[in-house]
């Protein structure tokens, strides 16, 4: 019953969109995802972090998204995205458009974040409810990958602040806005990419496999 309602709701969400959004969405759906077999240098990764009203993706509200592109071995200053939903009333086509803008910005690139169930959960729900999109990007989860790549430092999943402190970044512990957090994740991700290269994990697919394997292993054992 609940599944059916969801299914109907999604249909509704998509059907109610204004024409231009429908067109954008169709364009996004039709666009091919970048190949996961390219080397990291040629792959555009999008590092993403969110702001939410709480920790429960099913019940709390998504308040903002901050994202930054990492490719050609650098955090690119002209490839960034930031949205703050709290300035809107949370309703209407404006939010839909902003979510659509994020889809277009991400452009099916592999997404990088810390703790996918949290960030991915909020995004999944928002895209399903607002745009009727089943948002299933390729996720790279730093929370699982860092212990796998830097076993000498730590072998289990740790809070992000642990890694920030370990790597010696300034501002650990203090409050960061979503963009500052994203940029920190982006820096950590760059370090991780160099480390991955030394372990012969040269492509997105390699990295995703490692990410899945490490999360599987660590959950099991």
């Amino acid at each position: 019953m609940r599944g059916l309602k969801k299914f109907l709701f999604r249909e509704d969400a998509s059907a109610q969109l204004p024409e231009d959004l429908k067109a954008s969405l169709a364009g996004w759906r039709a666009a091919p995802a970048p190949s996961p077999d390219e080397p990291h240098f040629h792959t555009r990764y999008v590092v993403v972090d969110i702001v939410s009203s709480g920790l429960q993706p099913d019940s709390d509200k998504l308040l903002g998204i901050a994202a930054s592109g990492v490719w050609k071995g650098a955090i690119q200053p002209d490839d960034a995205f930031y949205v703050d939903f709290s300035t809107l009333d949370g309703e209407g086509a404006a939010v839909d458009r902003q979510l659509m803008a994020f889809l277009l910005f991400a452009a099916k690139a592999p997404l990088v974040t810390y703790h996918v169930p949290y960030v991915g959960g909020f995004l999944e729900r928002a895209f399903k409810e607002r745009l009727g999109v089943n948002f299933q990007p390729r996720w790279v989860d730093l929370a699982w990958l860092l212990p796998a790549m830097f076993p000498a430092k730590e072998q289990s999943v740790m809070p992000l602040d642990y890694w920030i402190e370990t790597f010696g970044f300034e501002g650990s512990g203090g409050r960061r806005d979503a963009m500052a957090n994203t940029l920190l994740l982006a820096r950590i991700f760059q370090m991780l990419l160099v480390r991955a290269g030394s372990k012969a994990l040269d492509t997105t697919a390699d990295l995703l496999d490692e990410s899945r394997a490490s999360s599987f292993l660590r959950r099991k054992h």
Partner: protein
Amino acid sequence: MTLRQEGRDRMAVNTIAFLRNHAPFNKMQPDALQFFAEKAKICFYAAGNEILGPNSGNVSYFYVIESGKVQARQAGEVTVTEYSILSLGAGECFPIGAVTAGRPSTNIYQALDDTFCYQLPAEDFLALMSSSPEFNLFCTRYIASLLSQSRRELQLQFAQKASEQQTLNSPLAGIGSRSPVTVLPETPLRSALETMSQAGIGSLVVADADGRPVGVFTRSDLLDRVVLAELPLATPIGEAMSKTPFKLDEHATAYDAMFAMATHGIRHVLVTDAEGRLTGVVSERDLFSLQRVGLRQIRQAIDGAADVAALQQAAAEIRQLAFNMLAQGVGAEQLTQFISALNDALTRRVIQLNLENHNFDGIEWSWLAFGSEGRDEQTFSTDQDNGIVFQPPEGADEAALKQRFLAYALDVNKDLDRCGFPLCKGNIMASNPQWCLTLAEWKNQFSTWIRIPQPEALLNATIFFDFRPLYGKTELADAMRRHLLAQTAANPLFLHAMAKNALDCEPPLGKIRDFLTDLEPGHPGKIDLKKYGSRIFVDVARIYAMATGVHNTNTIHRLRLSAQRLSIRNEEINAVLEGMNFIQLLRLQHQYLEGEPGTQGDNLIDPEKLNELDRRILKESFRQARKIQTRLKLDYQVN
């Protein structure tokens, strides 16, 4: 605002927060920081990885270290800066010189720790340099400090060469003849004398089979002990030589040798090693050339010189002293002025001495110096450029007077030539009737050149407008200068033509290679530092000086004073002068270190033979030359 723009802005805030904590960014305007933040990428280098090196090609980014540590070390074997390894930390930048010049880095930059860098693309770096005065100042200063570093390097080389040569504290091992001619004591006199004759020497060391000296045989021995004693030429030389020659260990100093000669009244000291074997001979003459000469002694020698021969000696001493000063770290600016000052004194003395044979009592006249001498910028190889201005008294026979001046000038020119100032190839000398003129004639000549700026007139202007009175009535030269400046002010077209002319020769900077070295026919691989270097500065300075009514002839004074009048920023003009001084210093070095003593050095250098840093700085100096040329081009609308 789009969400992407919002993202970029937020990211910029993050970058600016970092920049604000570090010089020179903390002094820069918000829009400059914003520009930096919008253009700079953030890159990561794991510990041990090379970030940049000579092989990475032309530098495409300016790097600012955000966190971590970077080691800079010089590529190649020769250390050209005062540091060979330098560690850079957060907030420090590299490679400023290379990114400014758009060439490969000469250093290897390697991440010592895990390092994050902001990387500003080279084109944005240059844009920032031109839009932010604070950033510009920072980079200019940095490059200027490279310049002074290289100058210190040069001084070190000179000092080393100088200390090898001079002072009476030098060990005898490095003085005098290193491979003296020796014969065995059994050698018949005839054979020994033949040896002396063939080698063209006046004395001979007699040594035993082990090389230990047992005697000396000189020409005076030949007279006293052979000829007058009627000794047969078959006699062994051992019977005719002076026995018990004076010997010193090779570690003894020149002073010891000098003292021995004075005490024992001998002319030669044999130098031996620890085993007593002969390793050299030091003569009285070798020691004299060691004695250092001082400015005061030279001045006294010049002023008290009774004839040209004495002045010739003084001219040689000027060269030696100039060299010592170079070694002591005197810069090109002071040094060329110093050479000029002594050369002036020398020239004045030649002028005075010749006045004993020519009488111009009651006539106002002045000896003029032109060209580099007129600008106080003589290097070691400068030929004569001079003239005479005179004021014929009322009712005097002008033509006859001119003949007298010409005859006098010819004597002076010849004497100057003997003192090491070669006659001018272009015959720009006071003995040429063209350049021995009355005040009215000079004024007229200047006016003609200025009114009709033909190529020849422009060429003459570059020589004659840099005049300076050396002797006699300086008021005549002042009158010439006032006339000149008034005329140029009244004829803007002339300065325009001069500007066009000055822009004919561009600094030899290549688009692909660092330097163009094929501009001089017959000298492939070389750069004429005068023609394509210092002359560019000199020409531009002359035009600005005339345009702003500056009376000085010295290029540095001209540039400083006219820059003040044109409100050109100090930093900018300092960078230009540093560039010019560096080129001058290279010329001096080339002329002294590479020229044979006593010969005229040239201005042709091979950039490949310079060390890394000098090459970099030479390139930057040429860029400064191009910069003032560009300014001139804009100011005079020359296309």
